[in-house]
């Protein structure tokens, strides 16, 4: 398959830092994940109260997309032309366990609605109005082959013109987001190697 997908932007969130296109745009202190997420939200947006109702997985994905897409021309594309391919290791287990804890008393509806990993994609779609194809994979480890081949195929064979490709993992205090904006034209090809290099970047 000829290369028809290119990385045009990246956002990494790990170790209480947000890195946009290899430049640090926010750094939190050594506090808990929830404190970091709130501080990052205040820094990045502060204009989306629904953020506070999201679970940590959705907050992480939402934040990465927010940073990556700010003032990006991709936001002007038709809604059906922007899709998403996300993946992680723990699915929604972090929230599943907290929801399960509430079942012993009165089950929390607000937690229940986040007991699926693909809800993070819904939150990003609602925020930006995206209606393109989206898929969430669960795999033991970051899989650069899957996350490069499948989006490339989507851009080549479907109406998608842009695709958010990301590993969005969270389990208790351990978390990691590696997100790339992928489009049909650009300079850096989306390949297993370029994605792996992005994931390993520190």
């Amino acid at each position, binding site marked *: 398959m000829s290369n028809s997908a290119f990385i045009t932007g990246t956002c990494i969130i790990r170790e209480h830092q947000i890195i946009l296109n290899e430049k640090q745009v926010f750094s939190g202190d050594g506090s808990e994940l929830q404190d970091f997420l*709130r501080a990052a939200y205040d820094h990045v947006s502060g204009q989306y*109260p629904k953020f506070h109702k999201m679970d940590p997985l959705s907050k992480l994905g939402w934040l990465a997309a927010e940073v990556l897409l700010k003032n990006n021309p991709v936001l002007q594309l038709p809604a059906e032309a922007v899709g998403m391919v996300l993946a992680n290791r723990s699915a929604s287990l972090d929230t599943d366990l907290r929801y399960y804890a509430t079942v012993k008393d*009165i089950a929390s509806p*607000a937690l229940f*609605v986040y007991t699926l990993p693909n809800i993070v994609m819904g939150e990003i779609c609602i925020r930006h109005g995206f209606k393109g194809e989206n898929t969430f994979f669960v795999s033991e480890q970051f899989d650069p082959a899957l996350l490069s081949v499948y989006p490339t195929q989507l851009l080549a064979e479907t109406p998608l013109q842009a695709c958010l490709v990301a590993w969005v993992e969270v389990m208790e205090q351990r978390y990691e987001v590696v997100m790339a904006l992928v489009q049909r034209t650009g300079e850096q090809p989306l390949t297993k190697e370029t994605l792996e290099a992005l994931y390993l970047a520190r």
Partner: protein
Amino acid sequence: MEQLMADLKAQIIEQLNLQEVKPEDIGNDEPLFKTGLGLDSIDALELIVLLQQHYNIRIANPEQGPEIFHSIRTMAEFITAQQKQQA
């Protein structure tokens, strides 16, 4: 009634994670859904949970929901009426 409405505002802010809303931002007669606070259907379920947890009140007839949860005042009136019945 005034104290109950003040309590409800604080409880709603905590239960619904309305972290950017202060109690004084919520009017006693302001609609809780659509306009006003802009709550959604999941929030409605959380309000039902709130009544159970804080006031031991179960809503027997779901069709009463829109009337009970119209505003802080209608919630307070409903709670007061239920507590009188239980007394």
